[in-house]
């Protein structure tokens, strides 16, 4: 479904991605793990068209998208929930959802999608007239995800949905992601929270300083001593149970 080949992205003169290749197949939940500054967010921004790659190609359903504008890429079926959620704080919850459905022209369809979002997260219905900035962190994340789902994307890009949330809410968010995946949404999830992310993912990539360092299934990565040493900075004496355990 999504095929990223040899992508190099620069911020000004700084090279953020050194030839990243990855693939997401239909129905998969793929996760990209990596420390701060490894380039995880940049990969998602490059896919959704916010930054243009210098080299490499990105194909979505066999159509090349790496030179397209963000609004065209959204219209093709890729929705991106950005880091720190970036809901519109001064707009109401309802207006945020409305903007999520900006590309929907038919009023009935828009109303149906809105209804679906409210059914999914009843708290959003209760707060629909409230300004989104007044919501709690967890509610804002639900809003950000619902807003991205208004277009019924084929591929959902999630950038650190657990950022800044309490452990309890993190569990909720991951349960939500898992449920979304089960309902048939293909997901590319960027996370620092290795524990949770790998548990729900079909496949994972580990990124270090702009390069894919490792990739594999949950079991592959779980066994991989190198993940712990290189990415987590843990020695081999750290008890595995502490790292990967629930």
């Amino acid at each position, binding site marked *: 479904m999504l095929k990223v080949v040899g992508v190099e992205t620069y911020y000004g003169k700084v090279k953020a991605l050194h030839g990243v290749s990855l693939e997401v197949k239909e129905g998969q939940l793929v996760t990209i793990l990596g420390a701060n500054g490894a380039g995880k967010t940049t990969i998602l921004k490059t896919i959704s068209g916010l930054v243009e790659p210098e080299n490499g190609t990105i194909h979505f359903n066999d159509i090349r998208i790496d030179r397209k504008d963000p609004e065209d890429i959204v219209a093709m079926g890729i929705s991106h929930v950005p880091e720190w959620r970036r809901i519109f704080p*001064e707009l109401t919850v309802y207006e945020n959802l409305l*903007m999520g459905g900006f590309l929907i022209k038919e009023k009935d369809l828009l109303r149906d999608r809105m209804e679906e979002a409210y059914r999914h997260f009843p708290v959003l219905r209760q707060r629909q007239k409230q300004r989104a900035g007044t919501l709690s962190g967890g509610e804002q994340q639900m809003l950000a995800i619902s807003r991205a789902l208004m277009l019924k994307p084929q591929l959902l890009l999630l950038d650190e949905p657990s950022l800044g949330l309490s452990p309890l809410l993190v569990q909720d968010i991951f349960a939500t992601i898992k449920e979304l995946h089960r309902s048939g949404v293909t997901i590319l999830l960027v996370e620092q929270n290795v524990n949770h992310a790998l548990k729900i993912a079909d496949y994972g990539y580990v990124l270090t300083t702009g390069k894919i360092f490792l990739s594999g299934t949950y079991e592959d990565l779980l066994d991989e001593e190198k993940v712990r040493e290189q990415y987590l900075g843990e020695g081999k004496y750290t008890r595995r149970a502490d790292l990967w355990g629930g």
Partner: protein
Amino acid sequence: MTDLFLGLTQEIISGIALGSIYALIALGFTMIFKATEVVNFAQGELMMVGAYVNFFFVTTFLSAAGTPTAWTFLVALGGSMIFSVLFGYILDFIINRPLKDEPIFSVIMATLSLAIIIRAVVAIIAGPISLMPFSPFGDSAISFGTIIVSVLDLSIIGSAIGLVIIFYYIFHYTRWGIAMQATSEDPIAAQLMGIPIKRVYALVWIFSAVVATLSGILLAPRIALLDTTMGFLGLKAFPAAVLGGFGSIPGAIVGGVILGVIETVSMGTLSFHFQWIKEINDIIAWIVLIAVLMIKPDGLFGVEKVKKV
């Protein structure tokens, strides 16, 4: 005592009319600033161009039709509106698009230059002389008891209220209006929703040019004089916007009205009673500006701006 009270009421009404125009200028200015972070020093020149274009249309139709009728002014108004839409669109293209992400200093220099260029071009086309704009209402006035209000002032206040309601409706109840708000809050998130932000910016400049043109059309007959210095009045958008709270749209409107009232009242009291305080209305706005910056920099409706990382 009653004389003083009557005089004051008269001044205040006249001040509200003048302030309505300031409010419209500040509204256009703030819209651009909020959406694109461009500080447009040429906002007053947009107003001046609007007044000239409208004058051109009115005189052209008059020379064609002879006697002025309501239609003359309405058709001229329509023509000016079409012009302002095109003008705003062009400005978005030549000013906003190339300069949007440049440092604020470059943007200020560019819009200041634009203001000077516009003044020069208008002077070349229209000639350096002052013109006498027509008021569609002549000198007619309505008296409420002992208070006399000119129909022109009433129509200015009425148009300003009407415009503010229209804009409020657009911003809060239409898809594109809410998209404008969303874009000004977070352009990146807006792009991720599929909102074509370039078109939103063009729309903001068009709106701004339309409001500026309307304020020019309303202001010209009130000062009964039309020349290229009219644009300087547009600088009053700054004290108005700062007074209301820089970057706040309700603040721009309220700040504009208050500023107009302060000007006329100070003129009617201070300059009237003390011979040595002449033309206080020309400087009072700037005194207010400095005072607000010193005492309450956030203005009346000021919101602390939290920059997103």
